[in-house]
């Protein structure tokens, strides 16, 4: 059982019997009023998006999903193919169902494929993933403050803000829970 204190992006809950994933979450409190927890939830089976507001004290059932350890193989059209590490069985997941996880999928990445009634409806990626920068502006000489940021494209096509000293070809660690740059991988 989850409470409103557990709410965060990525949490998976059961609503009206269906599995939903929290895709946006914020705390709100209108002047002198009560605490409200605003969520946007995506139905993991049919993609429907719900806006729901909860009060403190409300509880949620976790989504009942089966997790299978797999690795990412390849992308084909709008489907992504994963292979079960034990049975070598392959599973396809649609791009829509992947959500932000598609930003981090590189060959052989270990993931948990989420199944509901035997159907793959989502993928959990590791909290930290290392990806190579394939495009970013060069570091302007003389800027040693480290206080600016610039856009960088990584090998999956995902674009994020990175510190100015990051160069093309470097490997960086990204926090997949926030989608933000975490550190530079040395060597």
């Amino acid at each position, binding site marked *: 059982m989850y409470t409103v204190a557990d709410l965060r992006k990525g949490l998976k809950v059961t609503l009206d019997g269906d599995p939903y994933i929290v895709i946006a979450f914020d705390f709100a409190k*209108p*002047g002198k*009023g009560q605490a409200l927890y605003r969520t946007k939830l995506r139905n993991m089976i049919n993609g429907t998006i719900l806006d729901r*507001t909860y009060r403190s004290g409300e509880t949620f059932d976790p989504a009942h999903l089966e997790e299978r350890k797999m690795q990412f193989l390849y992308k084909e059209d709008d489907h992504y193919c994963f292979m079960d590490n034990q049975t070598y069985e392959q599973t396809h997941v649609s791009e829509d169902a992947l959500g932000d996880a598609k930003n981090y999928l590189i060959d052989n990445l270990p993931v948990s494929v989420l199944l509901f009634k035997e159907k793959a409806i989502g993928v959990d990626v590791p909290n930290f993933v290392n990806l190579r920068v394939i495009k970013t502006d060069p570091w302007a000489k003389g800027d040693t*403050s480290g206080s600016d940021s610039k856009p960088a494209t990584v090998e999956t096509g995902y674009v994020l803000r990175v510190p100015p000293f990051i160069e093309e070809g470097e490997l960086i660690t990204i926090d997949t829970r926030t989608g933000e740059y975490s550190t530079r991988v040395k060597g």
Partner: protein
Amino acid sequence: MAKNWPLARRRSALQARARIIQEIRRFFNGEGYLEVETPLRIPAPAPESHIDAVPSGAWFLHTSPELCMKRMLAAGYGRIFQICHCWRDGERGSLHLPEFTMLEWYRIDADYRDMMDDCEALVRAVAHIMGFGNTIRCMDGEISLNGPWERLRVGEAFERYGGMSMEEALERDLFDEIMVRDIEPQLGIGKPTFICDYPAARGALARLQENNPVVAERFELYIGGLELANAFSELTDAVEQKRRFLAEEEYRRSQGRPPYPLPGNFLDELSNMPPSAGIALGVDRLVMVLLNAESIDEVVAFTPEEL
């Protein structure tokens, strides 16, 4: 190269924040206000239904300097302001930090309408020091700071944006949900909005309107959908104040919240307080508005998660 890049990259925001706070001080000094410091750790916070103080030993970290500052009004200080940290347990989101920076100012012989004028002058002064004219960019829109700003009654806001009357929303216990979902995003768009005249039950320290006692003389200032400040014509009737505190405290305890002692010294001295008005403005949020920031995290050096 800085190891803590998220902190390093906030440098320009923190520089702007410092300039804004300097300008706030300059503004109030120029208006004849005395800057004061009251204790952050107090024995008895004002009991309010939906604000939780953080315990500190047998005392509490204050949720606002309101009670101490009103005791100063009662002792003859006519115009005072304070910039201090406040703590509110469990409040964390893109607009909330459990420890945040508050600006409060109080003046005697004034009511909440005077506080609206102060807000307009203060925000314009701060915008100018930031190099803006009377137009700022905030939450994907341009906002004109030219006066007078919009003044909208809470009841009108429910009719216009809420899809039901304020009375019906209260009756159906939907006031807060409609305010957050339907009304707040419409406030302070194009120009700042004072939303005023709240239901009496939603201003525990506010004076009721003389000719319409179901309404509290209270307003909130919104810019770009963001709530910046809360102001009252202050309640000076000690008997009525004690009655409201007891009711709020009873509600708190019925919700299983830790008991607060009654703020006895404040209640004793309240009858000496002249007719006054006061206001609390979130400094972090003012910085957000002026920097067009999407999250309060962008305008502070450290969030609790980064400590």
